[in-house]
């Protein structure tokens, strides 16, 4: 390969330059230089955007592992393939991570030298005027000649004094040279840009760290329940890698009451939509109790953790008696609403492991407002409890609770059970309105006593949220500075009464010509005033300008 490239003629010398014989170190250096170019950063940004997309098209484990499993079951080998290439864990996948890590590295490689450069630039004087100012994007020239030729030199210097004072007032850093003033403004633009990029780095790191040191857990609470913050009290618990569960904040949370309202006025698709979810809770921490109203957008913060209202539903209170008439099960049973149904049709089970006979299980549906639809089916037409109805089937046999395999509290594995039947041998259908009791074939009974509501809460702790907020604000401020502070160099030169004003934008600056004109106009006017008031005011003005000049040389 080396031969090939060296053989090439001058016309293709580009290839020879980019691919000389590189050692390992050379290769690394080359790769680093490539990685830190804007061009590669740009490509990485575009790749990052594309890499983020699949996560919105396919179900993701971080959101809904259940949907991932359903997808896998119904898609066979294709699903397996997608899983192998981490399409269900996009945001922790190797390929997504490598894109943003490369971008981070590129960013570091870009920010460090630029910071150093900017540091130097901020401490050095604005550069001298180039020879031909007429080429600058902003340029004005005018004659300020007046007075006799022997005083011209002095008049020129005077003019420059005025110009320098003026520029300084406009926020420029200035330096005085023999025949011109050089000025620069807008250092904050680059500062802002660096702040922006650094804050982005910090934000990304913070995001990574936050998930390592925080935790998130879920819990369902029926009205009247009290939650004591400890590992066993969670229905599910998801700690970050370095989260120390011994540090769980010590608090208790009691759900006193939950109230939901649904729209019964609006027409069309808005009918039945939820309007308020208000959970009255009592928190106890450090021996003091407080009452709060927990709402969807109003979490309760206690002991460094946040408690968030994420769901709600009905828990019908059901009493089951066995053949001997003993109460073997009693109390609210959590039924889970079908997410898509505005009528809150909810599914649930009742497990009765201890009874005189075999174990019993009930599987059923709860309808808050039972109505017959046009096909004669029972559906729930409204989410509020207007005509609550409980429909269940019963099973007897082995619930499978004793073999130690964990099972969901919301499903029953009916494999080793037989369905209860009525007197004519058909599957038994238990249908109850509030307060009703139905006899079971073996002599027991099921009673629908009443309804309680429950809420689902997320409880989580993320110690890095404050830092994240700070970096987000820095991102925004940095961006604002970097996009809207014009960075501009200006020069005012005078030779034998012929004045030139020129400006050069560094970066986007639509005002560069306007600024040149304004300054030129201003200086002409001042010159005119100055000439008129020469006899009286001149000395004073000159002295002031000279004083400014002295200050200008020492400050910055």
């Amino acid at each position, binding site marked *: 390969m080396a031969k090939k490239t060296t053989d090439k003629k001058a016309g293709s010398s580009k290839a020879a330059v980019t691919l000389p014989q590189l050692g390992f170190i050379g290769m690394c250096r080359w790769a680093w230089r490539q990685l830190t170019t*804007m*061009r590669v*950063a*740009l490509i990485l*940004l*575009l790749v*990052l*955007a594309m890499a*983020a*997309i699949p*996560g*919105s098209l396919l179900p*993701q484990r*971080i*959101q*809904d592992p259940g*949907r991932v499993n359903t997808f896998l079951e119904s898609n066979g080998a294709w699903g397996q393939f997608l899983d192998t290439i981490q399409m269900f864990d*996009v*945001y922790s996948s190797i390929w997504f991570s490598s894109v943003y890590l490369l971008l981070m590295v590129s960013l570091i490689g870009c920010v460090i030298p630029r910071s150093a450069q900017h540091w130097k630039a901020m401490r050095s004087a604005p550069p001298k005027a180039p020879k031909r100012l007429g080429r600058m*994007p*902003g*340029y004005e020239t005018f004659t300020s000649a007046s007075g006799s030729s022997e005083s011209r030199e002095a008049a020129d210097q005077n003019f420059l004094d005025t110009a320098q004072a003026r520029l300084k007032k406009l926020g420029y850093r200035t330096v005085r040279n023999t025949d011109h003033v050089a000025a620069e403004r807008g250092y904050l633009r680059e500062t802002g840009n660096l702040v922006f990029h650094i804050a982005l780095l910090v934000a990304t790191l913070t*995001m990574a760290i936050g998930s390592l040191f925080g935790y*998130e857990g879920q819990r369902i609470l029926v009205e009247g329940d009290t939650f004591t913050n400890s590992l066993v009290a969670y229905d599910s618990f998801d700690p970050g890698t370095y989260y120390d569960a011994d540090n769980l904040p010590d608090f208790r949370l009691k759900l006193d009451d939950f109230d939901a309202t649904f*729209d*019964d*006025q*609006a027409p*069309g*698709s*808005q009918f039945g*939509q*939820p*309007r308020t979810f208000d959970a009255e809770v009592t928190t106890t921490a450090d021996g003091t109790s407080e009452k709060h109203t927990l*709402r*969807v*957008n*109003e*979490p309760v913060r206690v002991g460094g953790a*946040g408690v*968030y209202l*994420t769901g709600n539903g009905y828990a019908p209170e059901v009493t089951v008696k066995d053949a001997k008439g003993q109460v073997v099960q009693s109390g609210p049973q959590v039924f889970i609403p079908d997410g898509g149904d*505005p009528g809150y049709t909810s599914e649930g089970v009742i497990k009765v492991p201890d009874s005189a006979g075999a174990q019993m299980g009930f599987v059923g549906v709860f309808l808050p407002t039972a109505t017959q639809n046009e096909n004669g089916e029972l559906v729930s037409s409204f989410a509020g409890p207007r005509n609550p109805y409980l429909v269940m089937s019963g099973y007897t046999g082995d619930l499978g609770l004793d073999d130690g395999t964990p099972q969901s509290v919301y499903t029953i594995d009916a494999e080793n059970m037989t369905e209860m039947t009525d007197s004519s041998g058909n599957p038994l259908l238990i249908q109850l309105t509030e307060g009703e009791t139905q006899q079971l074939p073996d002599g027991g009974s099921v009673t629908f006593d009443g309804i309680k509501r429950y809420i689902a809460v*997320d409880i*989580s702790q*993320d110690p890095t*949220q404050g830092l*994240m*907020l700070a970096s*987000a*604000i820095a991102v*925004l401020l940095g*961006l*604002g500075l970097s*996009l809207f502070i014009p960075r501009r160099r200006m020069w005012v030169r005078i030779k034998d009464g012929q004045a030139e004003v020129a400006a050069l934008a560094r970066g*986007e600056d*639509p005002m560069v*010509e*306007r600024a040149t*004109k304004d300054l030129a106009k201003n200086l002409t006017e001042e010159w005119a005033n100055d000439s008129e008031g020469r006899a009286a005011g001149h000395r004073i003005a000159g002295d002031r300008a000279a004083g400014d000049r002295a200050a200008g040389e020492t400050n910055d």
Partner: protein
Amino acid sequence: MDVNTDLAMWSNQLIISAMIVYAVAMIFYAFDLFGGRELKQTETGAASAAKPSNVRRTNRKTTTALLDPPQTEASTVPTTGSGKDKPRRGARIGTSLLILAGVLHVAAVLTRALSVMRVPWGNMMEYVLTATAITVIVFLIVNVKKDIRYLGTIVAGGVLLCLGLAITVFYTPAAKLMPALDSYWIAIHVPIAILSTALLYISAILAVFQILKAAHENKDPKWLRFMRRMPASIDLERFSYTIAAVGFITWTFTLIAGAIWAEVAWSRYWGWDSKEIWTFVVWVIYAAYLHARATRGWGPTKVAVLNLIGIATVIFNFTVVNMYFNGLHSYSGLS
């Protein structure tokens, strides 16, 4: 649940009226765009006028139109054809009608808001209704500083199309908010998102004109003859960029405010919900757009294409993601 149905009905009537006026405004603007007089180079603002390279080839007969001397400051105020020229009557009438339609439109937004006594962006229909109103307002405000009436056809046309969708596909009866939206963050996060969308939309139209103008400058095909009245493509590019830059900042704010709201509502500030994903994608594309501008080897047309990809993701985020993707942001109001 105390919804004032009379006001809601009035709002619908006002939308229809506004649509009619928008349609007529669009026609007048189109006359201005495709027929009518030369647009003077002076209307492109001061930025390019001083550069000697600025003399561009135009239609053979009309080269002189571009050779006006650089403007003084005063003329950055809208130049409605400076004196001698025929006034752009089509554009004038178009703008007057656009203002009228805008008034009806704002009235529609206000009556809708009053009918439910809350912010008028609780579902997709209201979002579109308000976003289009803001787009028209932004367009009119920008016009005070700089004559961009040549965009009028597309602004009026786009608004018309969106309103048409709002009262059909997206139509949602007036109602109260659902608890997930009932937060003061809706008054912060959403209007800024709307403003961003309006800005990015206007920036994208400018990018389209920039691409067409560049083609006109290079090859001058017949079908692009109407572009001869446009400002130079570099001016369109610069203006498109400035608006996109503002839009990028407001979008950044939208994203951050959204994350704060997400923490309050869902216990985490970022969870790769489908709406979050697409907001992120939009943000990264516009970041790439800003970068591309400063990257050697990326010409203005290529950069403008990134801008258009950007607006495509914005629109996708609003339509497809809202209506078809699973996620926590399921408050389109449609079912």
